């Protein structure tokens, strides 16, 4: 199972590298997506089989939280790969460009799968760095001056951050000499033996390192640039899955501190940076001129909310898992729709976009519905997860923090909602054609994502609840 997950995308990537044929590229993308979906379903039904060589088997494993993150990634990746068909057509890519895109996406997904499945801290680090390297080329894919700047900032800032995380890993191995192993299970089981001082120092380093990848304030500088300059399907993948996979790394490290009973230290860091992120996002949300940057700041905000949830310990974990799922799906839907808007108006400026509902009603309604999903209007599940996080604030005796939390959220909702409605309504300028159709693959992925969100929000299936609960059960 694990070998399939890791090798199929690479295999398809190699094929599309050799053949450089448009049909092969599409088969590679969609084929990998289908394989991933099948494996996710198999994991849900608890079907396991191992054909890994023995020396590899200890490094990779599906655990409860891994299955959850893998499922989220699969859903986003599948919708992105369908949307890519529209992206190929809309940008008139030649076979070679399509191949580069396909290979990079597949390698990127492999690296993220590696992060999710790693059972060894340093191996997780290797894969996190690999996600940076593989996605950097995707950010520069449109070969514009601004995308080059974004890609450079992204790859350099994240590499430095990740290098600091490696310093943290070495410091942890200083503190855990008696254990002499960086397997998560060994670290969890023998956490009491780790020297608390070194554990705290190493956590601070790993927090900064992985926090850079997660895009948490104040180390979020690369995130708005990279998300706004990448091709829209790639932005969806960055926001919906890349941030999550780095987050999973941090959750796994945080678990070591929980086992060593040092969580008060890490929780404080989570809470502080979480609130800082919502604040930064609220400050910028009102003055943005670029709608893709707006979505990027919204990602920072949601990562902040997730951090606050994590800091509340066992009260917040279920809400955190639900929020991760809901954020990934709604944000992927938003970014994919922003690709439609970019195609219709050829501009990322908010001022250039007017009367979206007249120009293309389907895109317009998807844009509005996805926005409602991300700002947490019922019945979408973000409402539920935010509600549960506020409840967790109450339960952990931090109820006064709910006041700034609500104030920032209201500012963000106001900023985002105002912008989106301004773009959706109004008149189309007379020289522009009305009621354009973009094709099936430009709408279907977002529809499916919103449909899944609605099902979760209105009546969560038992299977989904178990999945979330198992993932939340990872925390002790």
């Amino acid at each position, binding site marked *: 199972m694990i070998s399939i997950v890791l090798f199929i995308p690479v295999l398809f990537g190699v094929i599309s590298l050799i053949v450089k044929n448009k049909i092969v590229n599409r088969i590679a993308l969609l084929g990998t997506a289908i394989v991933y979906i099948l494996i996710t379903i198999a994991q849900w039904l608890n079907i396991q089989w191992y054909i890994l060589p023995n020396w590899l088997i200890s490094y990779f494993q599906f655990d409860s939280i891994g299955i959850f993150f893998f499922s989220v990634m699969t859903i986003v990746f599948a919708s992105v790969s369908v949307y890519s068909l529209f992206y190929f057509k809309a940008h008139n890519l030649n076979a070679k460009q399509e191949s580069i895109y396909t290979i990079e996406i597949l390698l990127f997904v492999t690296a993220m799968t590696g992060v999710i499945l790693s059972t060894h801290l340093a191996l997780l680090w*290797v894969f996190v760095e690999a996600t940076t390297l593989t996605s950097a080329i995707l950010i520069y894919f449109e070969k514009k001056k601004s995308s080059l*700047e974004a890609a*450079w900032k992204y790859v350099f800032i994240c590499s430095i951050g990740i290098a600091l995380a490696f310093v943290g890993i070495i410091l942890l191995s*200083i503190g855990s000499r008696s254990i002499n192993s960086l397997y998560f299970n060994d670290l969890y089981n023998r956490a009491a033996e780790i020297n608390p001082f070194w554990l705290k120092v190493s956590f601070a380093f790993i927090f900064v390192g992985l926090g850079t990848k997660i895009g948490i304030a104040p180390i979020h500088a690369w995130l708005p640039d990279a998300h706004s300059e990448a091709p829209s399907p790639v932005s969806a993948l960055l926001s919906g899955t890349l941030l999550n996979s780095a987050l999973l790394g941090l959750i796994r490290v945080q678990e070591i501190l929980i086992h060593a009973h040092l969580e008060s230290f890490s929780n404080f860091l989570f809470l502080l940076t979480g609130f800082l992120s919502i604040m930064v996002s609220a400050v910028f949300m009102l*003055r943005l001129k670029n709608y893709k940057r707006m979505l990027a700041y919204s990602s920072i905000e949601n990562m902040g909310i997730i951090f606050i949830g994590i800091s509340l310990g066992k009260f917040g974990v279920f809400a955190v898992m639900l929020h991760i799922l809901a954020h990934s799906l709604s944000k992927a839907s938003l970014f994919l729709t922003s690709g439609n808007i970019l195609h219709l108006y050829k501009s990322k400026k908010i001022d250039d976009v007017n009367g979206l509902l007249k120009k293309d009603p389907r895109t317009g309604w998807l844009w509005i519905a996805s926005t409602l999903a991300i700002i947490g209007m019922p019945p979408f599940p973000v409402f539920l997860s935010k509600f549960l996080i506020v409840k967790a604030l109450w339960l952990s005796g931090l109820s006064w923090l709910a006041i700034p939390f609500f104030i920032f959220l209201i500012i963000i909702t106001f900023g985002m909602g105002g912008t989106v409605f301004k773009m959706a309504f109004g008149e189309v300028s007379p020289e522009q054609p009305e009621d354009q159709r973009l094709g099936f693959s430009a709408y279907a992925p977002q529809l499916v994502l919103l449909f899944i969100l609605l099902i979760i929000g209105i009546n969560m299936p038992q299977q989904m609840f178990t999945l979330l609960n198992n993932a939340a059960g990872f925390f002790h």
Partner: protein
Amino acid sequence: MSNIIIILLGTSMLYVFAASRIEAYVKILALQGTLLFLLVVVDIKEINWLNIAFLIVETLIIKTIVIPYFLLKVIRKNEIGREIEPYISQFYSVLIASAIFMFGFVAAFWAAKTNAGIKPLYFGISIVLIVASLFLIVNRKRIITHILCYMMLENGIFLLSLSVANEMPMLVNIGVLLDLFVGIFLFVIFFNKIQEMYDGNHIDVLTELKD
């Protein structure tokens, strides 16, 4: 013996603070690679030949020859001579460098007192390398200097990992090296593109994206 090598490593970092020719930085990088190689050879205590072979390939071939040669070629091709005036002037940089060194030695003394089982001088100087290269990245303007200082940062991390006796599994070692290698390769690709697209190759030209 190993102490002399480590002191030399620290001194090489001090030289970077004073120097302003970019080619000198590459030579320092190659020198650091050689010193790390010597350190590995002097320090060898283990019998596992696979690990030894890997370390020798990493330090001697990758860090001393391949990456410096690659970067030197890029510098010659783009005809980059000197570093442009940094944000904090050379004089104050050297002062800050001394402060970083002091901090490093304090860390070394402190590490000697704790029972963490780390080699004190390794620990102190590796902190010097890491902090100093981070400072240089923030202070210097040329993108190629950033890439070079990133390599020095990696050298510092390598030294830090030598200060700990614990070993990483081979798979992880190979992965780390591969990431480093691909990373440098990618940095240079982007550097060349920036050189083509912008006039000037320092970070002040990157101002397209802001809020």
